[in-house]
C-alpha cells in the first residue's frame, strides 16, 4: 500500500535531523496558523500563489532562493565545525549523516538557492528592462516557478522522511547505483532535481522568447541593457543543456528502478558516460548562474559611477563568447579520467581561453568606474568586492585548467576553495548587490544602508577568512569531503576557517536585521519617485513598486540607456513629455494551473521515491485531467479600464513632476 514507506523512515534515533525537522515543522505550522488567523489566505491565493505577474513570480523565486541559501548555509556551518572537531576524533556527525550534509549543501546551494535567485532576477527585470508588460508565456512562467518550488520541497522533506543522497551533489555511478546505495536518498535527489529542472527549462524557453520576440518599440538588440543580454545567453544555455540533465538523470533512474545498464560497472554499463554527460550540463550550469550575475554588475557599475557602461559592444560579444565556449570545457572536471594528453590539452586550452571573455568584462567594469563619480552605496560595495574576489577565483581556476597542475589538486580542498571563490564571489555577491539595488523597485522602499554595508564587510572578510585557509589546506594535501581528519598539522587552518564561518554568520544576522529595520522604517525609506539610485534603464521609469501592467503606455526607445535619455530630456526641458493618450490594456488572467501542476508533481515525485505506484499513476492522471481542464478555459485575458491606467500613470507623473520641481528649487538644474 505505501511501498517502502513506513514509520521507520522517520529518523527517531538521530537527534540532529529530528530536532531540526521538529523546529521546521513547528515554524511552518506557526506561519500557516498566522496566515489562517489573520485571514490572509484569499490575499495570498489571489495575489501571489495564482499570480502570473512576472514581478510577483520573480519575487517568489527570490524568496525561495533566500530560504534555501539559509538552509544550505546551515549545512555549511555543520561541515566546517565537524571538520574542526573531528581532528583525530569522530566529531559530532556520524559518516552517513555527514555525507548527506555535503550532498544536500551542494544540491541546495546550486539548484535551489542560486538558481531560483538568478531566475527570479531574470523574471523580475527582463520585461521591465525591455519595456514590455509581461514575459511571453505568463501562465507557463507560474508553472515553472511552482515546479522549482516542488523540487525544493522534496529535498527538504528528505530531512525528516527517509534520507538524502550520500553521493555528493552529482551522484556519480556506480556509487549511486542500487547495488551500492540502495536507500531512497538518491531517489530523492533524482526526482527533486528532475522536477525542478523541468521548471527551469520552462523559464529558460520563456525568457529566450521574451528577449528575442517581445521588446518594446525601438529596443533593437544593441540597445538592450546588458542584463537582458546576459539573461538571453544564460537562458539559451538552459535550453541547450538542461535537457542533458533531464536525460542523464532519466538514465540513472532507469538503472536504479528497473535494473538497466547505462552506468553500472557490470554488463556493459559505462560509469564514465555519466560523468561526461552530467558535466556537459554541469559546466554550462555554472555559467547559467554567473552570466546573469555579470549582468547585474553591468547595471550597477554604470549607475553608481554616473557613466555609461564602458565597452557595451565588447561586453555583449564577451557574453556570447562565454555562452558558446562554456559548452566546450566540461572535461576539465575529470582530467584524471585518463582521456589522454591530446584531449586534456584541448580542454585545458579551452578552459583557459574562456577566462579571456571574463577578463574583457572585468576591464570594462573597471574602466566604467574610471573617471566616474563613484558612489560607495551598498550595491556598489558588493560589486567592487566581487571584482577583487572573482579575479582571485578566476586565477586559481586558470591554474586548475592546466592538466598537470590539476592532477595534483584534483578533488582537493584547493578545488573547493576555488569554486566557492567564483560562485560566492560571483553569484552570491551579485545576488546581494542586486537585492540592495532593486529592492526599492520591488517593494517601494529602500533597505537600510548602514546595515547593508555592515553585511557586506562581514561577508567579504568572512569569506576570505573561511576560504583562504582551504586553499592552503588543499596544497597541503587535504582532499574534499573528509568526515574526520588524521593530520593534526591541519588543525590551525581548520580552526581559522571556522572563525571565518563565525564572521559570515554575523553577515547573515546583519542582513536579517537590515530587512527587519527597513520594514520598520519603511515610511522613512520610501522611494517616492521610482528612481532612487539615478538609474539608467527602463525599469526605473516605472513607479516603485510598478503597477501590474508595468507601463501605462509602451515606451518608444530612441537610443542606448533608454531611461537615461528620457530623464536627461526631462531635466533639460524641466518638464515631462506631454501626457500620452491612454488606452485600455489587456492582461493575462491569474491561473492556479502552476500550483496545481506542482502539487501533483510533488505527489508524483514522493510516490516514485517510495515506490507507491498507485499514487504515482493517480497523480499523473490527475495532472493530465487538470491540464485538459485548464486548457478548456475560454477567457485568458482581462481588460484594465482606461480610467485605471490613467489614474496610475498620472500618479507616477505627479511624483516625477514634484521631483523635478524640487530639483529646480534646490538650484540643481542647469
Amino acid at each position, binding site marked *: 500500500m505505501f511501498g517502502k514507506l513506513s514509520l521507520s523512515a522517520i529518523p527517531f534515533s538521530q537527534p540532529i535531523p529530528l530536532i531540526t525537522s521538529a523546529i521546521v515543522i513547528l515554524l511552518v505550522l506557526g506561519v500557516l496558523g498566522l496566515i489562517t488567523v489573520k485571514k490572509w489566505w484569499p490575499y495570498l491565493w489571489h495575489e501571489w500563489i495564482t499570480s502570473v505577474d512576472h514581478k510577483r513570480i520573480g519575487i517568489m523565486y527570490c524568496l525561495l532562493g533566500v530560504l534555501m541559501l539559509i538552509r544550505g548555509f546551515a549545512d555549511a556551518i555543520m561541515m566546517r565545525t565537524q571538520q574542526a572537531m573531528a581532528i583525530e576524533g569522530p566529531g559530532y556527525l556520524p559518516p552517513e549523516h555527514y555525507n548527506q550534509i555535503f550532498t544536500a549543501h551542494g544540491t541546495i546551494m546550486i539548484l535551489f538557492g542560486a538558481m531560483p535567485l538568478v531566475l527570479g532576477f531574470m523574471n523580475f527585470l527582463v520585461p521591465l528592462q525591455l519595456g*514590455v508588460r509581461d514575459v*511571453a*508565456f505568463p501562465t507557463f512562467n507560474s508553472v515553472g516557478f511552482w515546479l522549482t518550488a516542488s523540487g525544493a520541497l522534496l529535498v527538504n522533506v528528505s530531512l525528516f522522511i527517509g534520507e538524502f543522497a550520500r553521493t555528493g551533489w552529482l551522484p556519480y555511478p556506480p556509487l549511486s547505483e542500487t547495488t551500492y546505495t540502495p536507500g531512497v536518498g538518491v531517489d530523492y535527489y533524482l526526482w527533486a532535481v528532475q522536477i525542478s529542472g523541468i521548471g527551469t*527549462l520552462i523559464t*529558460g*524557453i*520563456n525568457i*529566450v*522568447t521574451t528577449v*528575442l*520576440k*517581445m*521588446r*518594446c*518599440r*525601438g529596443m*533593437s*538588440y544593441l540597445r538592450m541593457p546588458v542584463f537582458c543580454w546576459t539573461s538571453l545567453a544564460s537562458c539559451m544555455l538552459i*535550453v*541547450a*543543456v*538542461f*535537457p*542533458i540533465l*533531464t*536525460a*542523464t538523470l532519466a*538514465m540513472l533512474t*532507469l538503472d536504479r528502478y*528497473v*535494473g*538497466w*545498464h*547505462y552506468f*553500472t560497472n*557490470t*554488463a*556493459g*554499463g*559505462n560509469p564514465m*558516460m555519466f560523468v561526461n*554527460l552530467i558535466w556537459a550540463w554541469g559546466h554550462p550550469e555554472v555559467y547559467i548562474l554567473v552570466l546573469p550575475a555579470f549582468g547585474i554588475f553591468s547595471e550597477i557599475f554604470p549607475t553608481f559611477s554616473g557613466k555609461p557602461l564602458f565597452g557595451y559592444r565588447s561586453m555583449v560579444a564577451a557574453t556570447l563568447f562565454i555562452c558558446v565556449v562554456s559548452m566546450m570545457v566540461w572535461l576539465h572536471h575529470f582530467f584524471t579520467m585518463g582521456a589522454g594528453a591530446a584531449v586534456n590539452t584541448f580542454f585545458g586550452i579551452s578552459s583557459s581561453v574562456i577566462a579571456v571573455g571574463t577578463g574583457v568584462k572585468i576591464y570594462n567594469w573597471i574602466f566604467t568606474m574610471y573617471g566616474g563619480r563613484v558612489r560607495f552605496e551598498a550595491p556598489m560595495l558588493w560589486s567592487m568586492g566581487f571584482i577583487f574576489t572573482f579575479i582571485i577565483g578566476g586565477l586559481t581556476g586558470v591554474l586548475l585548467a592546466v592538466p598537470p597542475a590539476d592532477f595534483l589538486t584534483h578533488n582537493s580542498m584547493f578545488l573547493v576553495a576555488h569554486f566557492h571563490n567564483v560562485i560566492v564571489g560571483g553569484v552570491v555577491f551579485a545576488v546581494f548587490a542586486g537585492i540592495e539595488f532593486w529592492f526599492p523597485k520591488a517593494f517601494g522602499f529602500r533597505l537600510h544602508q548602514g546595515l547593508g554595508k555592515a553585511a557586506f564587510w562581514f561577508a567579504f572578510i568572512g569569506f576570505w577568512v573561511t576560504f583562504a585557509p582551504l586553499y592552503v589546506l588543499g596544497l597541503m594535501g587535504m582532499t574534499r569531503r573528509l568526515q574526520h581528519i588524521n593530520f593534526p598539522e591541519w588543525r590551525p587552518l581548520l580552526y581559522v576557517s571556522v572563525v571565518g564561518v563565525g564572521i559570515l554568520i554575523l553577515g547573515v544576522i546583519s542582513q536579517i536585521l537590515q530587512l527587519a529595520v527597513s520594514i520598520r522604517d519603511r515610511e522613512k525609506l520610501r522611494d517616492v519617485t521610482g528612481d532612487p539610485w539615478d538609474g539608467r534603464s527602463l525599469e526605473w521609469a516605472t513607479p516603485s513598486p510598478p503597477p501590474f501592467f508595468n507601463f501605462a503606455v*509602451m515606451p518608444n526607445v530612441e537610443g542606448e540607456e533608454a531611461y537615461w535619455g528620457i530623464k536627461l530630456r526631462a531635466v533639460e526641458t524641466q518638464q515631462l513629455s506631454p501626457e500620452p493618450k491612454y488606452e485600455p490594456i*489587456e492582461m493575462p488572467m491569474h491561473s492556479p494551473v502552476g500550483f496545481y501542476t506542482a502539487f501533483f508533481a510533488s505527489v508524483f515525485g514522493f510516490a516514485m521515491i517510495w515506490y507507491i505506484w498507485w499514487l504515482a499513476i493517480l497523480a499523473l492522471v490527475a495532472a*493530465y485531467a487538470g491540464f*485538459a481542464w485548464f*486548457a*478548456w478555459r*475560454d477567457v*485568458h*485575458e482581462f481588460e484594465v479600464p482606461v480610467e485605471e491606467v490613467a489614474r496610475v500613470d498620472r500618479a507616477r507623473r505627479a511624483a516625477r513632476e514634484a521631483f523635478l520641481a524640487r530639483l529646480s528649487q534646490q538650484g540643481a538644474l542647469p
Partner: protein
Amino acid sequence: MTDIGLPASIEAIRRVREDPYRLGHRPHGPEEPVEGTGQGGTGPAHKRILVGYGFWIFLLSDIVVFSCFFAAFAVQRDAIAGGPTIAQIVDVRRVAFETAALLLSSYTCMLSFAATNVRNLLWTQIFLVVTGLLGLVFVLLELQEFADLISRGITPQRSGMLTSFFGLVGLHGLHVTAGGLWLATMMAQLQVKGFRPEIVHRLICFNLFWHALDIVWIGIFTIVYLLGSGA
C-alpha cells in the same frame, strides 16, 4: 493581444528576399518594419508568432534530450556483454512498415493543417484521425517488436547495448504516445470550440511536435536499424 490571419514572418521573409541586406541590421530602415514580427523596431510580436517561436525552442531542447540517448547508444553499441549484437535483434522489415506509417502520418498531419488554414473543420478532423491512427499503428508495431524481443530473453537488463537500444527507441515511442494523447485532446477541443485563436496556436504546436518526432525517427531508423542491420 490580437491575432492575425497570415504569419507576419512570411511577409518578413518576402522582404528579406527582396532586400537581403536589411536582415537584422536596419530596424529603422526607410520602410516601416513589419508589425508583429517582434524584430527590432516594431514592438512585441503577435501571440501567434510567440507561441510558435517558443514551441520551436522547446523542440530544440527536446532534440537535445534525444541526442543524449543517441550518444549513449553510440557509446554502448558494442557493449553487448556476451549477449546478442545489434545486427541480431533488428528486424528491418517491420521497421520499414513502422517508418512508412510514421512518415505517412506526418503527411496527413500536414494535410490537416492545410485544412486548418482554410478553416475547414471536417477535413481537419478527418486528417487528424488518420494521423492518430497511423501513429497508433506505429506504436503497436513497436510494442510488438519489444514484446517479441523480450519473449526471446532479449531484455534491456541483459546488456549495456540493449539498455541504450530500448532507451532510445522507447523514448521515441513514448513521445509518439504522448503526442497521440495530445492529439485526442486537441480534437475534442477543436470539435467543441472551433477555430478559436488559441486552439489554432495549439494545432501549430502539435504539428511542429509531430514533424519533429518524424525527424528524430529518421535518425533512429538510420543509425539504429539500417546501420545496425549492416553491422
